[in-house]
């Protein structure tokens, strides 16, 4: 995988006494201590994070945790006090912290586009003039600009609104204009600073879905700032949690939910519905940890209600439930099955926990088996595994 943005030990301090503050950061001082001693505000300290091409990396934290500060270092809206911010620029890698003005402008025009929380639209311009802003600043000729702007407006379903002024649109539409403006420059890297926070919940969900759809097609590298964990879990391929200017934990969404690094993260995820994040893979017991019977039989659950006979290739040869032969059925078909025949449901590692639970519900809390792509048996989920995952115990 190619690295698109690489933060290396980034410190950001707002204020005059940069050297003094940096020394305090090195000594491990907190934001409050630095503020008291030097009068400077610590934006972020020692932040290292790698964002790969094509992924959505979410920066999370309470307000003031430094997430926006770090994001805005990518296009130098915030000046980095120390460290490197490496951004992919075609075949080259540019350090935004030290590059000259001309390079920075080129990056901003062609490589890194941004979407703002407060939309940042120019109220005296029409929708199409707003969308064309980046292209106009980059000196793209008018004919080409018009063509590209209209393509973007179509993409976000705003082509009928192109002649309206920005303030005549609803909040959700205004942010779609903001999105179109960012897409119009065809920059491969997209910075999104709490883009949906100012919108009401229904519109927010809708725009998240739209973003995911567009992303499936456009494959941008997106760095997304959010204070809403549900949002982060929904759209993020990686989540980075920040507190007081420092990175606390980085990982895949389920890592964060299953293995919170400290109490701050635990508080964060306390109200998250684990069903929206977890998959069968996250909660299963590995095949090797299951209780082995004789003749290749394996018990799927601790209560010994259900067992599989596994052949040499790892495939299931026979199944038994409550001592009677049973058939094994995919969880995907759970709705269409009659409840009469003795069944054992199976899932893929990527199947959502919710579907697994539905299957358990249908089968009177029988365990659910896990098969890989080649239908080999890899593990099982019992009712206790589900309960402990949901209760996080």
């Amino acid at each position, binding site marked *: 995988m190619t690295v698109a943005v690489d933060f290396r030990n980034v410190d950001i301090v707002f204020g005059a006494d940069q050297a003094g503050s940096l020394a305090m950061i090195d000594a491990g001082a907190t934001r409050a201590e630095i503020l008291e001693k030097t009068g400077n505000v610590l934006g972020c300290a020692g932040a290292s994070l790698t964002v790969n091409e094509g992924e959505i990396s979410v920066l999370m934290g309470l307000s003031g945790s430094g997430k926006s500060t770090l994001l805005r270092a990518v*296009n130098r*809206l915030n000046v980095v006090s120390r460290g490197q911010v490496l951004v992919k620029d075609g075949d080259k890698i540019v350090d935004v912290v030290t590059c000259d003005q001309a390079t*920075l*402008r*080129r*990056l*901003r*025009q*062609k490589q*890194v*586009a*941004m979407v*703002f929380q*407060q*939309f*940042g*639209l*120019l*109220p*005296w311009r029409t929708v199409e003039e707003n969308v064309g*802003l*980046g292209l*106009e*600043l*980059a000196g793209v000729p008018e004919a080409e600009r018009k063509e590209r702007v209209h393509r973007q407006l179509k993409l976000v379903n705003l082509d009928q609104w192109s002649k309206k*002024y920005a303030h005549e649109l609803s909040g959700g539409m205004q942010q779609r204009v903001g999105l179109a*403006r960012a897409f119009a*420059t065809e920059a491969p890297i997209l*910075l999104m600073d709490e883009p949906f926070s100012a919108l009401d919940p229904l519109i927010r969900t809708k725009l998240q879905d739209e973003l995911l759809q567009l992303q499936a097609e456009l494959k941008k590298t997106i760095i997304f700032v959010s204070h809403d964990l549900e949002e982060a879990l929904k759209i993020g391929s990686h989540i980075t949690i920040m507190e007081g200017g420092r990175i606390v934990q980085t990982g895949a969404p389920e890592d964060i939910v299953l293995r919170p690094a400290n109490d701050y993260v635990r508080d964060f995820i306390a109200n998250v519905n684990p069903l929206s994040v977890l998959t069968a893979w996250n909660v299963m017991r590995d095949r090797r940890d299951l209780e082995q019977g004789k003749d290749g039989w394996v018990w799927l659950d601790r209560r010994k209600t259900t067992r599989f006979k596994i052949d040499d290739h790892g495939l299931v040869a026979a199944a038994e439930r409550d001592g009677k032969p049973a058939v094994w059925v995919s969880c995907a078909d759970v709705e269409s099955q009659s409840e009469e025949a003795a069944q054992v449901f199976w899932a893929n590692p990527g199947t959502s926990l919710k579907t697994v639970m539905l299957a358990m519900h249908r089968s009177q809390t029988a365990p659910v088996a896990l098969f890989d792509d080649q239908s080999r048996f890899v593990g099982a989920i019992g009712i206790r595994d589900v309960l402990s995952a949901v209760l996080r115990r």
Partner: protein
Amino acid sequence: MDPISQFMVDHKIPIGAWGKAFFGFLTDNFDTIFRAFSNGLNFLLDGLVNILLMVPPVLLALVIAGIAWLLQRSRPLAIGVFLGLIFIINQNLWKQTVQTLVLVVAAAAMAMAIGVPLGIWAAHKPKVYRVMLPVLDLMQTLPTFVYLIPVLTLFGLGNAPGLIVTIIFVIPTAVRLTHLGVVSVPKSIIEAGEAFGATKSQLLWKVELPSALPTIMAGLTQSIMLSLSMVVFAALIGAGGLGTEINRALGSRRIDLGLEAGLAIVVLAIVLDRMTRIGVGGKK
């Protein structure tokens, strides 16, 4: 007088004398330059007035009404402007009104030409604004009569010194409102401009100035109104126009003349105010 006050009076700081010496130095050494400047300016202003007076008054009134229509796209306004100007022609004050109009428009234009760049500069550099602020206060609050005297000694009598006095009085408003407009451009749209790679000048022309335009236009309207209020003072040092009529009315206690000229100024003020109100009630 008590001894302390007496002591202080005995050691009076000779500000007046210093000022006098300074202006004496200017007149002694650069008199020709100031006079040449003044003559040139007088020539320009008088020339403009004469050209406008060659046009038949009703035709000129129609042209101004046409400009009003072009600026505001409002038929009632254009008709109102035309009727107002007809009233002035009817009062036999057309020549004076044209003189005043030229002076006011020239002063407001000059004040904007100087004040807007200064205002932008001050908005970008807070330190500059801190230095500028007391000077602006001085220009606005120093009684007009006080700087009539040095301007008179440097530039002599005529339209030119009248114009200069008016400009001095009006510039602070242009600077202040431009500063206000540029400073209050929302940070979010400035960042949007920066994030998409605007240069400093692109940021100024495509983001800051359009955003500040309504305030700057309010500055223009204010400049014109303040210029009109200076007409009477400018007339004291020889600027022609409606101000001269009013001074004459005052000197000879002629209520009728004063009323007529005063009303003409009011009509002119309303006409110019309505014509230059751009961006306030316009597109929104």
